[in-house]
């Protein structure tokens, strides 16, 4: 049996516990990441939902900015995490952190305030059946290059996308009761971790 991949969940603020729970159920070892030196040991990382301005400020204060720009393993941003991974932010603070890991221009609170938060079944091009998506003061985005693979759209804008090993979703799979996206992310991290360990000459348990 393959070793479990170690996947970090950024735990500065937001709904990190929900992601940890889903990751464990999807077959990963989940760890809470509060310091940049913890990034070394990871096979993948999730930037969770929460308040993007809060998380962005804490990332800067605790020295995560450069390590996250360089982080070369799979990384997945949901909601606030999607905002942080984008190249440009509309409707943010003037100095709001954009890590430029995916070629998207993201609009914060694209649907409006909490009164316009909603759930809806959402079709993703990489899933056979729709996912029961939860959008909480959610962002939407437009692609800035053809390197972005759009997986789902809402109201004509990007709600889920991939670019190389960077994944984003503007909704909350970790609140959906649906493990498919987490399983898929864990599989991506696992193949990466096995390749890495093989190259390093390590033996799989």
């Amino acid at each position, binding site marked *: 049996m393959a070793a479990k991949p170690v996947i970090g969940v950024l735990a500065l603020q937001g709904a990190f*516990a929900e992601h940890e729970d889903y990751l464990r159920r999807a077959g990963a070892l989940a760890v809470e990441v*509060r310091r940049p030196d913890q990034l070394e040991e990871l096979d993948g990382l999730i930037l969770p939902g929460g308040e993007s301005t*809060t998380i962005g400020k*804490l990332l800067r204060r605790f020295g995560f900015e450069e390590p996250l720009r360089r982080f070369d393993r799979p990384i997945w941003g949901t909601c606030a995490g999607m905002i942080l991974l984008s190249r440009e932010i509309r*409707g943010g603070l003037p100095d709001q952190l954009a890590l430029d890991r995916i070629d998207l221009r993201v609009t914060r609170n694209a649907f409006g305030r909490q009164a316009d938060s909603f759930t809806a079944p959402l079709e993703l091009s990489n899933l056979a059946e729709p996912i029961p998506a939860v959008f909480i003061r959610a962002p939407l985005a437009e692609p800035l290059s053809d390197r972005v693979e759009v997986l789902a759209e809402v109201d004509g804008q990007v709600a889920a996308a991939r670019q190389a090993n960077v994944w984003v979703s503007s909704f909350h799979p970790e609140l959906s009761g649906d493990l498919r996206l987490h399983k898929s992310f864990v599989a991506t991290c696992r193949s990466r971790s096995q390749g890495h360990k093989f190259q390093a000459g390590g033996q799989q348990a």
Partner: protein
Amino acid sequence: MSKEKGSLQVKSGLAQMLKGGVIMDVSTPEQAVIAQEAGACAVMALERIPSEIRKEGGVSRMSDPAMIQRIMDAVTIPVMAKVRIGHFVEAEILQALGVDFIDESEVLTPADEEFHIEKSHFKVPFVCGCRNLGEALRRVGEGAVMIRSKGEAGTGNVVEAVRHMRTLNAEIRRAKLMPEEELMSYARDLGVPIDLLKQARKAGRLPVVTFAAGGIATPADAALMMRLGCDGVFVGSGIFGSSDPASRARAIVEATTHFADPKQLVQCSRGLGEPMRGLDIASIPQHELVQGRGR
């Protein structure tokens, strides 16, 4: 695409996104910007912070919608506002205004000494205060998607918030350890729905996001409440009642993230100037305590 708004999942969802964060009381757009800049995950708009309400007395009501609107326009983070206990019309007004969260709060003068708002009918999420498991689960039964300790607001003294979280934890622990046949009587004694008590017993915690509130004045206070099992903290008078609100606000945000890391807490506790003066609870006349409002 058919969008379903205002469901329990959508209301609880926002509470979940606030976890690990600090929600700060603000009375002006300028204060709201300072709070956002410090890293607050939301602000609570109210005309007078609790320590001023305590000092000035009189009837304390929902804030002027124009004042709340100015704060909503000044920041991009969620904005909460308070209504009086049982005042469902104030809540309808705030929902129509479009605030992101309502606090049915004992800090304001109660409008109803018998009944709370039936919160499940609203599309906007609600947070309510509690001193113990009975109060908490009754509020959840009425539709609150977030619970906070009551503490004793406006005192800068964390002792009551600690008491309330300790009580909550002890009562949940008791439910957890008790044989199943004793649960119904425990639910009867607490005055709570049995299904919610079973949920709390199974999870070992409240079935909703649980924040600390009431008297938090320092980074160490915030970290203490996190260590007692809270998901995040409200800071009322503790920030804008102190000598250097911007630094203190930022420090409390950092302490709430690194609550279990004493070395980080040393860093964020340094050189913050004077905290709010604070009150000994024993020096407050019994009838001026607000935590007994709304059971």
